[in-house]
């Protein structure tokens, strides 16, 4: 599956911890392929996490973020069963969105 986002959100007390693994090549534009040609830059520019219609984190990523990026953060609030939305747009205009319920 091309644009896959795995999200795992868990609540403990008043804090919800979100872990996300995003499938993306994150090509920096500096790497050459086997034929010696530069692989064009292809990376996620903006990733956004939402909870109950509110943005809880906006990430601006550059080509120096690793392939298949992983991110972990936490925010106050969030109850078990409520959805966390994750979406991104890359430098080619491709997008992906997903939503996962807090455990």
């Amino acid at each position, binding site marked *: 599956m091309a644009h896959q986002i795995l999200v795992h959100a868990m609540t403990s007390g008043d804090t919800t911890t979100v872990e996300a693994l995003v499938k993306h090549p994150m090509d*920096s534009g500096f790497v050459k392929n086997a034929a010696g040609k530069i692989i064009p830059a292809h990376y996620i520019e903006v990733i956004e996490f939402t909870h109950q219609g509110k943005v809880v984190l906006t990430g601006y990523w550059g080509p120096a973020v690793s392939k298949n990026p992983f991110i972990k953060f*936490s925010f106050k609030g969030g109850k078990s069963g409520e959805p966390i939305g994750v979406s991104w747009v890359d430098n080619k205009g491709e997008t992906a969105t*997903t939503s996962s319920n807090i455990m």
Partner: protein
Amino acid sequence: MTDSFGSPPVSAKRRTILTAVAAGAAASFVLPRTTFAAAAVTAPSAKDYPMKAFTQKTEAATLQAMYGKSAAPASSDVKLDAPDIAENGAVVPVSFDANVKNVTGAAILAPSNPFTMACAYKIPAGTNPAISSRVKLGKTTKVVAVIEADGKLMSASKQVKVTLGGCG
């Protein structure tokens, strides 16, 4: 008229059931931890992307482009966690934690990379200023975590030795 499975037309009711079953199967097989929630998630807009900050080659120029300030003084309130030696520069776990209030933004810089800024975050009220992620380091470099709080910048840095470069 065929459905997504290429089978012949079926009654509307049966189609609904099949689609629901297929969606459920896809969810449970492909994304084991993900369910399709009713709330629609829309893709973010790239119009606020700080492209200028991502193309700077020095720490001062990056901070100027991103935050309008040329320096981020070191602060003991910012904790940066990165390995001493990164065997694989393509995947270096970096995390930061700031013990300050009213944090609005954060960034991770690697001044020896082709472009200094690796990533930046906008941190709204209620979100903890502690984020873990993985970045690429082209060669041995200082890694800087910059925190913006109350309009001021502060930072923590650490030298990371890279055995195998991850940028090219």
